[in-house]
C-alpha cells in the first residue's frame, strides 16, 4: 500500500520503448548477468524457500499448526518448539511455515486477477485507441484514485473477510497497474514497422497480440509483479491487523502478527517471528524487482 505512488511513476517514466531485437539480445545474457547480482540470488533463495513452504508445508513443519497444547502456552523456544508457542500452545514455527501458504496464495491470486483482467484491458485499449481507449483508461484511473488500502477496505467490507475475498480486494487495484503497463507497451509496439508490416500482410489481431504485443509486455509485467507481490503481502497483513483479513484457525502471517501485538512487551518473539517473515519476504520481492528492472530496463543498465 505504501508503494503505489512510486509504482505508478514507474509506469509513467520507465516504460521500455525497446524493439524486439534488442530484447532478444538482452534475454540471451539475462541469466548470466542475473547470476552476477548476489542480492538477486539471495532474494531468489529466500523466495524459493517461501514458495516450497507454501506448496508442500508438511515435511517442513514439526507440529500440526492448529493443535492446541494447553500445557505449554506462550513458551519460549525449546527443542520441541523451535520458535516457542502462542497463547494456545500452538507451535509458532509450524504456523509460520503454514502461514507462508496464505501469503503466497494472496500474492499469486491478486496478481492473477490484476494481470488476468488488466492485461486484456490494457492491450485492447492500446490497440483500439480513440474513445474506447479513453473510456477504459478513465475507468482504470478511478481505481487509482483510491489509496489502495482504502479500496481494499471498501471491497472487504462489501464481501466480508476470508482468504478469497482478501485476494479479490487486493487484486482489484492491481488491475489498473497492469492495464496501464500493457497499454503502454501496446502503444509503442503498434507503431513499430514489423507490426505495421504484419498488419499489412493481413495477420489476424489475435496473432499480432500473441506474437508481438504480449512478448513486449512481459518484461515490465514481471518487474511490476514482483514488486506488487510484496505489496499484496503487506496489505494482507494490514487487513488482518484491522481485523478484516483471512479466517482462523488457518495461520497467516498477518493474523499471527496482529494477535501477537498484545504480547509485544513480554513475549516479543511471538511478534518478531511473523513480523520478520513478512519483512524479509517483501524485501526479497522488492530486491528481485529492482534487479529485474535493472536487467530488463536498458535505461538503468550500468548500475550493475
Amino acid at each position, binding site marked *: 500500500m505504501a508503494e*503505489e505512488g512510486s509504482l505508478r511513476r514507474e509506469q509513467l517514466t520507465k516504460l521500455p520503448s525497446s524493439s524486439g531485437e534488442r530484447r532478444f539480445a538482452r534475454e540471451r545474457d539475462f541469466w548470466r548477468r542475473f547470476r552476477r547480482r548476489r542480492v538477486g540470488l539471495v532474494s531468489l533463495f529466500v523466495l524459493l524457500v517461501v514458495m516450497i513452504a507454501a506448496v508442500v508445508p508438511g515435511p517442513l513443519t514439526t507440529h500440526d499448526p492448529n493443535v492446541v497444547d494447553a500445557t505449554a502456552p506462550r513458551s519460549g523456544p525449546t527443542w520441541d518448539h523451535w520458535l516457542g508457542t502462542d497463547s494456545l500452545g500452538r507451535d509458532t514455527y509450524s504456523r509460520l511455515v503454514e502461514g507462508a501458504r496464505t501469503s503466497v496464495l494472496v500474492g499469486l491470486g491478486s496478481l492473477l486477477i490484476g494481470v488476468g483482467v488488466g492485461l486484456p484491458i490494457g492491450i485492447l485499449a492500446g490497440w483500439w485507441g480513440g474513445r474506447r481507449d479513453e473510456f477504459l483508461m478513465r475507468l482504470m484511473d478511478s481505481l487509482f484514485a483510491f489509496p*489502495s488500502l482504502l479500496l481494499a477496505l471498501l471491497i472487504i467490507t462489501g464481501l466480508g473477510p476470508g482468504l478469497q475475498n482478501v485476494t479479490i480486494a487486493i487484486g482489484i487495484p492491481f488491475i489498473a497497474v497492469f492495464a496501464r503497463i500493457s497499454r503502454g507497451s501496446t502503444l509503442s509496439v503498434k507503431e513499430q514497422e514489423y507490426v505495421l508490416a504484419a498488419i499489412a500482410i493481413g495477420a489476424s489481431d489475435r496473432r499480432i497480440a500473441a506474437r508481438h504485443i504480449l512478448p513486449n509486455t512481459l518484461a515490465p509485467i514481471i518487474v511490476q509483479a514482483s514488486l506488487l507481490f510484496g505489496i499484496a503481502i503487506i496489505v494482507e497483513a494490514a487487513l488482518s491487523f484491522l481485523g478484516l483479513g483471512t479466517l482462523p484457525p488457518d495461520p497467516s502471517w498477518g493474523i499471527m502478527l496482529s494477535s501477537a501485538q498484545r504480547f509485544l512487551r513480554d513475549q516479543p518473539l511471538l511478534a518478531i517471528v511473523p513480523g520478520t517473515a513478512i519483512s524479509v519476504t517483501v524485501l526479497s520481492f522488492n530486491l528481485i524487482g529492482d534487479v529485474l528492472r535493472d536487467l530488463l530496463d536498458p535505461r538503468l543498465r550500468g548500475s550493475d
Partner: protein
Amino acid sequence: MHAFIIRRLLASVFVLFVVTLVTFVSINVLPGDIASRILGPEPSPTQVEALRERLQLDEPLIERYWDWISGAVRGDFGTSIRTQQPVGSLILDRLEVTAELGTLSLLLGVLIAIPTGVIAGSRPGTVLDYGLTMVAVAGVSIPNFWLAIVMIIVFSVNLGWFPALGFTPISDGLFPNLRSLTLPAIAIGLSSAGSLARQVRGAMVEVMRQDYVRTARAKGLQERVVIVRHGLRNAMIPVVTILGLQMTVILGGSIIIETVFQLPGVGKLLIDSILIQEIVVVQGVTVLLAAAILMLNLLVDISYAYLDPRIRYS
C-alpha cells in the same frame, strides 16, 4: 496545454463519478444499515425500526444515491447521521490532523530520501550504494503499522518520550503538538522515504551518466560540486513530480496510522465510518481523497511539461 488541462479536468469528473458509484455500491451490498449499527450489541427490534424511520433509511437505494449526488454537485455532501453535523464540516474538523501529519511525514521522507538517494545514485554499484539501497528497500518492506507499534512500546511505554496515543492541537502549544505527531510521522515518513530514495537514486544514476556530467568531471571539478551542481539539480526534475505522488502514499498510510495512534484525522474518520456503514461520510471522505489524488496527478503531469521542455501535451 489549456485544452489538455480542460480535458483532464473533465475526465476527472467522470472518474470521481465512478468513485462515488463504487463506494456507494460496495457499502450497500452489506446487509443491515446504520440504524442497527448505532444501537449497540443488544438492541430492541422496535427501536431499530423507529430509528430507521427517523433516519429515512427506507428510501430506495437509487433515490438515496441521487439525493446524495445531486447535493454533492452543489457542494452539499449531506449530513452525518451519527453526529448530525454536515459532512463537509465534519471532514474539515479532521483535516488539521491529517494535513499536519501528512506534511511532517513528507518532510521527513524528503529529508531522509534525498541525501540517501543522491549518495547511493552518484556511486552506483559501490558497497555504499548497495548498503543504502538495501536500507531504503527495507524501509518499504516493513509494514508501517508494525513499525508504529514497536515504536510505541520503545519510545512511549519504555522511554516515555512521546505520548502513546492521542493528538494535541497546535493551539495547545507547538512542542506538545509536535510531540504527539512525531512517532506517527516517522511511521509514515520512513516507508515513504524508502520508495522516494529509490526514485532519487534512479534519477541520479541516469543523470550522472549524461554527457554534461562527464564534461564537468573532465574539467576537473570537484566530485561534490559535480554531484550538487549538475547531478542533483537535474535529478530533481523527476523527483519533484514524484513528491506529488508521494502524497497518495502518505494519505493511504494515514488511514491505518491514525488508527494505531488514535489520532482524530480524516483517515480514522473513514475507517470508523466504514465500520458503522455511515455511507454519507464514507462517500464524502472518499470523494475528497480521490479529488485530491486526481488533482495531484494532474499537477504532476503539468509540472512535467514545465520542468522538462521535451514533454508537450496536446
